[in-house]
């Protein structure tokens, strides 16, 4: 098992190097650089870009006058040492901008992952054991509705209703009083009050799918001879289902865990923009539009690393759940 994990980690290195090169090139494909963007932005806003008269000097300071391979090398060597370079737009080190955003992103993503599984597994089991009854049909209908509503639309709908009916502004992770305040119990409570909306919005989409998978698998397993044997032995129905059937049927759900992480992270980006959450998504979008290359590159790299780690963890979890899996 240890060799397997080490092997997987070693495999991740070339993957990440490839990701870093491709994303670094793609970020800079459009014509012009950050300073050209900023000049355009200034001209559209102020009708004047004279504050950019030292663009040539700035270009030198940001290293934008160097060739792309040179820029890549200086960025990536800094990156492995934990120095991600400066953000052009925010005029601070990338390090100062990203960590609490990555924290919130993880909080929301993992939170909604938990939400998904906590809802989907029991409902799936219920649905499978009550196949074609009215409750199963109702849950099936609901799950299809849940699957087909995009998360951002759900977020928008929730916002409109919450505002129209209750006058509640549903956005952000903190109310304006706690925003930027130091951490206190009150702030934590405020965070939890705000957190459930994005968690549900993000989770609901995946819930429906997982629930269907859980139901299908369980039905499959429930039809197998060893279940009949178990029942014939006179075991209680819930022991048959939970102890014998579910343990087998849950395997695919664990392997899906690794795959649902990218979906949730990218879904979180759109939902964050709609709900105005201080996560990585809006920052990444802005930095891509700006060609704020070191910020964008760093964010993409960190998100990719998260995915690689997430996949590894789900593989390990699968092995733990299902002893039949062998490492090669």
């Amino acid at each position, binding site marked *: 098992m240890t060799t397997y994990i080490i092997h997987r980690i070693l495999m991740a290195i070339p993957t990440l190097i490839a990701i870093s090169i491709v994303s670094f090139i793609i970020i800079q494909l*459009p*014509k*012009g*650089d950050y300073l*050209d*963007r900023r*000049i*355009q*932005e200034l*001209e*559209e*806003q*102020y*009708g*004047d870009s*004279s*504050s950019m*008269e*030292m663009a040539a*000097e*700035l270009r030198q*300071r940001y290293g934008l006058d160097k060739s792309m391979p040179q820029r890549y090398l200086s960025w990536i060597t800094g990156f492995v040492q934990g120095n991600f370079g400066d*953000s052009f*737009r*925010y*005029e*601070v080190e990338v390090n*100062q*901008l990203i960590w*609490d955003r990555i924290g919130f992103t993880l909080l929301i993503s993992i939170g909604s992952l938990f939400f998904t599984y906590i809802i989907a597994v029991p409902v799936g089991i219920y649905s499978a054991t009550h196949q074609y009854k009215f409750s199963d049909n109702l849950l099936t209908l609901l799950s299809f509705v849940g699957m087909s509503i995009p998360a951002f639309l759900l977020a928008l709908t929730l*916002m409109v209703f919450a*505002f129209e009916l209750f*006058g509640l*502004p549903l*956005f*952000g992770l903190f*109310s*304006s*009083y706690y*925003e*930027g305040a130091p951490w206190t119990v009150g702030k934590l409570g405020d965070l939890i009050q705000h957190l459930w909306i994005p968690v549900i919005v993000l989770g609901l989409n995946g819930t429906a799918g997982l629930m269907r998978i859980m139901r299908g698998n369980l039905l499959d397993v429930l039809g197998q001879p060893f279940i009949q044997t178990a029942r014939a032995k006179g075991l209680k129905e819930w022991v048959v289902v939970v102890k014998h059937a579910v343990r087998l049927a849950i395997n695919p759900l664990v392997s899906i865990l690794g795959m649902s992480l990218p979906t949730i992270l990218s879904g979180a980006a759109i939902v964050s*923009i*709609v709900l*105005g959450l*201080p996560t990585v998504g*809006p920052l990444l979008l*802005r930095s891509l*539009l700006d*060609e704020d290359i070191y910020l964008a590159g760093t964010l993409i790299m960190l998100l990719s690393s998260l995915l690689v780690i997430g996949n590894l963890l789900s593989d390990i979890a699968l092995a733990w759940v299902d002893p039949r899996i062998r490492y090669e």
Partner: protein
Amino acid sequence: MISRPNHPTHKLAVTISLFSMLALVWWGCSGQQSTPAIPSDTQLRSSTSAGLEAKEASMLTQKVADGELPPLEERLPENPLVAKTDYDGYEKPGSYGGQWHRFHDHPELGTWKMTAGYAPLIRWRFDCTGLEPGTAEAWEFSQDGAALTIHLRKGIRWSDGHPFTSASFAFYYDLCLDDRHSYSPPVWCLVDGKPMTVETPDEYTIVMKFSGPNWLVPLWLATGFWHSEKYNIPQHYMVQFHPDHSAYNNFSEFEKKNKNHVNIERPTLWPWKLVKYEKGGFQVELERNPYYYVVDELGRQLPYIDRIKSRLVPDPQVRVLKILAGEIDCQFRGMQLQDFALYKKGEQRGNYTVREWESTAGAQPAILLNWTDPDPVLRQLMRQQKFRQALALGVDREKCNEIAWRGLLQPQAATVSQEGWHFADQAGQELFEEWKKADADFDISRGNQLLDELGLTQRNKRGIRLREDGQPLQIVMDMPSSNLNRQENDIGLIIADGWREMGLEVILNTPPGAELSLRRNLGKFTVSMHGEAEMDLFTYPDWVFPTLAKYWHPRVGKWYETGGEEGEPPTGPLKELLDLYDAIKKEKDLQKRHQYVRDAVQIHIDQGPFHLGTAARSPSLVMVKKGFHNVPDNGILGPWAIVTPATSYPEQYFISDVDRSSEVK
């Protein structure tokens, strides 16, 4: 008060403003001291409103009592600047305290600097009829206009208590002359390419000497926050990072520390000083500057409001929500017209009102026709007035207004701002009305006729007119690509329809990112777009005069900008326009300078159009919460050069119900 151009009292207003301007010039030139603005005690006692006895905020009185601050008299200049109250919406002298919640849309705090980051030597008046004293109390030119003497107010202090003197300007200009620092001598100090010299005979006098007459300098000193924030440099603080006076061997630390919107330690002249700037500008807080040099009519130190909390909200929809939720006390800029109905609907619940200021836009957007098109055939066509007129006739401006702007604007030809001081009298307004109507009809058949007259009668199988080289007459129109520019995209489609009906092949091009402006400023386009508004053509002449590599004249502007080294020399009407601008720069008399601008507009009317109008004059939204006072009812919120609302002295806005906007929410 901002008078609308067609208003009957307009003539009167103009006369009054002209007189007040003359008085101001006389006052400025004579260098006379006005009477000290701090009223006597009897005057103060006579005011009946409660809370007006205090001449400074209680948070400062406490600090004075604790010995942390010198008393008020020692913090104010001998002759403090008195905030002007001559606008509609001014209510009364305010009470101290409270917190102003707002948002900004960029970490550079541009919208905040436009509100309270304006501490120039000479200020724009709020009604845009001319200039008024700022940190300088007077200024005068020498007879030939080659020397400008500026007299600073005695006793102004930086926010750390250090005196503000002429040393600041001298320090700034030394940086401009220092090759190691990124500043170069500002464009306004160059006469025939030669930079000025600066002398500071004493602490309160700055003498600028130019190599020839340079009458526009006071305007440049007043225009925008970006000039004054450069020359207002706290030399006593910055010198510790200067390579000549410290261990640093270059200016990179110096330039980092000189950022007034990032470095909270850098002393400032703003009414509120920065006390918190975190996470790349997402959380910004400012607190009153105890040494602020402006007082109200009763001689009480401004600002009234204690603290500002500003959040970076990059997403426009979240800004809308913040306003609807009542989280914002007062907001200028960053609100889009498309959300107007929503804002109106939310007034009651959010406990605020939305006011409509003037954007003074002359075209939203203007359609730029490249005078120096890279394609020789198109270039030759673009230079024929009939061709440009035909293109103008194909623009359905009514439809642009109704579809893209929901009928909130006015269809007209492309112009600068009607409120600009060049057009203040009746003759000016008549000329402007003529300009608005010039080539602003929508008439496809007349357009077709003009194109036929140009000899473009051959067509291909698809009905597209053929150029003289047999190629189909194809026009590529550049548009901004972002969905934030929906109006421009709608308007592009409407114009393309009109031009197609006249037998032109139109290709709509949405270059990504910075390519749009690169194509525009390098002159590599045929037709492009840009919003147009300009209040002062003396300092920002480039919509009318081809002085910069921009808009409809990028290559000719490049020629003028570089003194003939790059770009293309002007011909025909462009030569006439540039000659007029050269005359403006040398003219002492303000009225004559205005007349030259009008002559240039006449050239645009007679020989234009050089760029095409669509819809113009959108309202600019301003949001004010109930209980937030002294915000002007109307004003101009458009071109950045005139720095509104900073010219209305936002330091005299106040919050009546301080409890409401304080910490608890």
